[in-house]
């Protein structure tokens, strides 16, 4: 019935972020209580806690936010989201920030985008993903050195028939690709 105004005097970046996050309007209500930063399993490693990030978004500090490591610490455990007293969809906002960071080439000192790309690469080719390809391709291109550390583990996995060497392909790959193509058109490929 009654719609709350989201435009008004918000910072440009603020509007941008909630634009990109379903339910993001709640961000306007952040109390700066820090229950998010306190809840995060990786909270200790963050250079800015989510709460701080929100304050920075409000202050329109675009660059600082997008170059922060905060969202890359997020493991989508949703503790912050369920605990937030203002019901801000924090995890989703982290996704939104990740998307922006990647799109605008901020995310350089993390391997997450690479992993993501490799992963979705498979999905778009086969319709499904599979660990071996994922691991091998991802590590080969991104952290060849640490590959060796993985060998014993890989082997034991292999030994237990837990590593398939070829992926399963879905029948309707074409259909899926069409959907993805369309979605990218509408959503503006990021």
């Amino acid at each position, binding site marked *: 019935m009654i719609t709350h105004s989201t435009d008004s005097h918000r910072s440009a970046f603020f509007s941008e972020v909630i634009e*990109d996050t*379903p*339910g993001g309007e709640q961000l306007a209500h952040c109390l700066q209580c820090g229950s998010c930063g306190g809840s995060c*399993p*990786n909270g200790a490693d963050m250079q800015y806690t989510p709460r701080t990030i929100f304050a920075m978004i409000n202050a329109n500090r675009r660059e600082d936010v997008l170059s922060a490591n905060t969202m890359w610490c997020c*493991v*989508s*455990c*949703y*503790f912050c*989201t*369920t*605990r937030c007293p203002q019901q801000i969809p924090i*995890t989703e906002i982290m*996704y*939104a920030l*990740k*998307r922006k960071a*990647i799109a605008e080439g901020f995310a350089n000192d*993390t*391997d*997450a985008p690479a*992993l*993501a*790309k490799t992963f*979705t690469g498979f*999905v778009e080719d086969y*319709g*499904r*993903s*599979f*660990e*071996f390809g994922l*691991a091998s391709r*991802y590590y080969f291109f991104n952290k060849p050195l640490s590959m060796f*550390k993985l060998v014993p*583990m890989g082997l034991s*996995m292999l030994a*237990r*028939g*837990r*590593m*398939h060497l070829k992926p*399963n392909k*879905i*029948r*309707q790959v074409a*259909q*899926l690709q*069409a*959907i*993805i*193509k*369309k*979605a*990218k058109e*509408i*959503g503006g*490929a*990021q």
Partner: protein
Amino acid sequence: MKYAYYPGCSLESGSAAYDVSVRAVADALGFELEELDDWNCCGATEYFTQNELVATSVIARNLAICREDQTQLVAPCAACFLNLKKTDQLMATHSHVKCQVNEALAAGGLHYDPGRVKVRHLLDLIYTDIGEAKLRQKAVKSLKGLRVAPYYGCQVVRPMNGFDNTEYPMKMDELFTWLGAEVVDYPVKAHCCGGHMTQISEDAAFELIRRLLDSAVEYQADLILCMCPMCQLNLDAYQGRVANHFNKNYQLPIIFFTQLLGVALGLDFQQLAIGKEIVPAGPVIQAKLSAQAAGASA
């Protein structure tokens, strides 16, 4: 009872053990899982970091290809469960998402009305639809003597499971108490296993894994029960390296809850793919249960 079944990629590769045990348990408990025809990957958390609409559309395809009569979709994998449920909810609560996703689906000749398919997690199904009475009746082998640490992880219970507490879930605890196991009530049962951090920043991931293993050990658990392939992989496959990293020595088997449930239902390890895990669980279960049996007969 008949449900549409969405195994998800891990269950057909790395975590086949989960898939095998799920199907075995389904047979034993007498409910039917019909694999969703030509399902595609849910994109885990990876699509959301790139393009929200693509992410939701890719997921929505799976909901859209459900037949009219497939109104309940069961996903054992946490990430799949959350993604499917989340997408359905997003479409239901945000009309623009609904429109855009359907526009995308239309490109593949598909359409989905939010709410048509009810996304369920396997645990919910077994706990609610099968229920205590039936389980007790079907259970042929008591799990007495076995100290199990139910591990829920994150994405089944949060942000929206609709069947258990998001902070301190109890359903798996109850389920295995029914089956006679000693359930250890340890504080971190719904904390994070590190997720894909194992791939990105091992130090971060190892710390998280350590917390879980430590706590379980502190509470003298014989094994940890998982309901998510990623959790199982991290706790099991990385256990050795985590041990070295903090120079400790864990020997804590990590299996899927359906595997132990199967044991209680009288299925043998083969049928349940027990032995696929890296830290072997078979011997532990054997030892504890027979010890108990011996104690009982003596």
